Each structure stands twice: as C-alpha cells, then as structure tokens.
C-alpha cells in the first residue's frame, strides 16, 4: 500500500494551545516520512477468539438494560481508494448517558450505570461494515477552561488492514451545540475534515420502535499500490 502525504489542515494541530495539554505533549519536529515496507504491507493479526459475546452490543453487558437512549451505529470502513477494510479490528469506548465513564479517574459528579460499561469491539465484515448497539453518550465537563464541556462522542480505535492505517478518533452526533466551543474538535483546521467526524442520523438504520440509527463511515489512509504491469 502507498501512503500519500496528508495535506496540512486535515489532521488536528499537534500543538493547539486552546487544548491545554497539547502544549507540552504534541511533537514539534516535523514527522519523518520514511520508506518502511513492513508497516505498509503487514499487520497485527488478532484471533477471532478475542471477541466476546455482546462485545458489539454495549446495552447487553449488564444484568438489565442501561439507562439512556438506545442507538445503533453502523458504517463502512474503506481505504483511500474506496476499497473495503475487511476483517479488521475496531474498538469503541464512551461514557454513559449521564456523561460518566467507568474509569477511576473520571471525577464528573454524574452517576455510573451498573448496567453499562461503555466499551466494546468487533471485526468489520467482507464489505468493511461494522454495526454497534449502544446508548447515546452524554456531554461532560473536562476542566480545560471555564464551561468546558465535550460534545457527545464515541471513541473509535481502528487497526486497518496494514499497520500504518492505525487510527484513533471520535465520532460525534449531528447538530451538537458544543462543537463551536470544543477545542478538541476545533483543533482540526479543515472544516470538511471536522464535518467527517459527525455521524448522520439514518431513518433506514433506525430499528422500528427499538432504537434510532446513525451512520458513520471511516476512510483510512492508504491506496492500493499495484505497480504497473501486474
């Protein structure tokens, strides 16, 4: 696979002072473009036994249904040529409907839900598709500045089909009033790149009277680099 250099503005700014902790953590040297055959042709290969029952249904991991708005999120993962990223590991994690993560360092004064962990994983199918059932996460405060509240989001961690496709990102929900005030979202200079992180409401994916549907497609880096004559 071939990985074209990414135009400035598509990735977030590594040092973006409104997001305070980037100041000392974002590398300041330009990334070194390297020709390395292994990361662009091979990958980490998890066995299917890593998948546990209900890993793709975050509402079914407790004794009873979690509180909140049950939703289904689905989409296709493709590469820059539009080819499906098949049989590829995808992890998700999120806070609960009240905006609280099951994590010892989350100090937000909102209740944990005994029936909601907020994490899962799955593999894409032959069409690059994934489908995840969960609870719509709530917004939460994070202390970066006065009235700093994160827009509701689900974290995605993707392994791709080759190592260099690895991606961690966040999926947002349409029309969130917090976008304009969120330095994490705003650290991405390119407007279109920001918009691509926002899922679409889908009446087609909505399941009768059970749950609303959202679509979130993902394009990983990398093109098929079949040389001429092959």
């Amino acid at each position, binding site marked *: 696979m071939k990985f074209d250099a990414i135009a400035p503005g598509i990735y977030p700014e590594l040092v973006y002072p409104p997001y*305070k902790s980037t100041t000392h*953590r*974002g590398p*300041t040297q330009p990334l070194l473009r390297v020709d390395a055959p*292994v990361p662009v042709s091979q990958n980490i290969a*998890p066995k299917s036994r890593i998948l546990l029952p209900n890993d793709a249904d975050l509402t079914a991991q407790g004794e009873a249904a979690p509180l909140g708005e049950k939703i289904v999120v689905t989409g296709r993962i493709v590469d820059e040529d539009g080819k499906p990223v098949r049989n590829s590991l995808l*992890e998700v994690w999120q806070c609960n409907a009240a905006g609280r*993560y099951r994590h010892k360092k989350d100090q937000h004064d909102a209740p944990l839900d005994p029936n909601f962990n907020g994490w899962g994983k799955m593999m894409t199918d032959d069409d690059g598709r994934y489908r995840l059932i969960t609870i719509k996460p709530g917004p939460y405060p994070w202390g970066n500045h006065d009235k700093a509240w994160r827009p509701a989001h689900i974290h995605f961690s993707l392994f791709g089909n080759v190592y260099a496709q690895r991606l961690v990102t966040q999926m947002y929900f349409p029309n969130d009033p917090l976008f304009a005030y969120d330095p994490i979202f705003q650290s991405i200079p390119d407007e279109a790149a920001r918009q691509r992180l926002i899922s679409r409401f889908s009446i087609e994916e909505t399941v009768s009277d059970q749950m609303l549907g959202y679509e979130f497609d993902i394009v990983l880096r990398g093109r098929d680099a079949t040389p001429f004559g092959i």
Partner: protein
Amino acid sequence: MSNITTSQTIGPFSHEAWKWATDMTPAADGITISGIIYDGAGVPINDAQIEAWQPAAAKAEAEAAIPGFRRVPSGEDGGFSFQLSKVDPAPGEPVAYITVFARGLVKHQFTAVFLADDAGLSQSAILDQVPSARRATLLADRNADGSYRWDIHMQGDRETVFFDYE
C-alpha cells in the same frame, strides 16, 4: 484533497476499554524494554498507551491471541515496560514498531525501537533515513541485567523521531 477520516485524542479514559488487549500480553521470557514517557517540560506522562508490534514474533507466538502485539499503559510515574519474544528481527528491522497514544496527543505517533547492541543496525534502511543526530532516540540501551532502557520524549532536545510511513 484527501477524504480521510481525521484523528482525535485517545483522551484520559481509555484504560478500562483497552485493558482486554493489555491482558492478552503473553508472559514472555524474552527481551524486556522499559522506559519513561516524558512531555516537553520533562514531566512523565501518566496516561499514555504504548503499543509495540514485533512482526518477527508472529511464528513464535502463533498460539497467542494477538501474536507479536503488546499494549501497555504508562504508570503514574510515566513508566512503561513490555516484553518481546527472543527472536531475531530481519537484519536492520526494528525490534518493535511502536505506536504512542495519550491525552493531549491529538494524533497517535508512530516510531520504532532498535536494540543499541544489535549488530544489524548499520544495515537498517529505516535508521539510514533518520538524521544521524537523532538516531539515538530510537535506540534502547542494554542494562547490566540484560534488559533494555528506552525513553520516549514527546518534545525537546531529545524529541523521539516520529514517522509518517510512505
């Protein structure tokens, strides 16, 4: 203009969700690499996740859930440690490819670690592309007990070389 999906930080709350893979780490009796991950002010980063991939271990770890893969969170002191299988990489290849994630790091960073006493270093096509003054940031030094020490610096004079693969 590329239509790729952009990156966002892993944030501070990845640990519970990522733990399943940390627990998959085989208890190897092999090459131990330990270090501390520092920010640009010299402060240890206590919420990083480090992933190490050792392609050469695929065969030796064929029965593992994720052969050749290690995922370790940094501790409160910024420390991390992972054990790799004792297999020789192809000459010039890193002992492991590394991916770094952290709160405040809006895009994961790729790097690689080589063993400073690896006789194959001079043949490394990857190291050959790294300016000589910065190569040491990718080298793990051997400790007296046979383990290796490798720190990660996100910024500063010793900023680790981070890659963008072609």
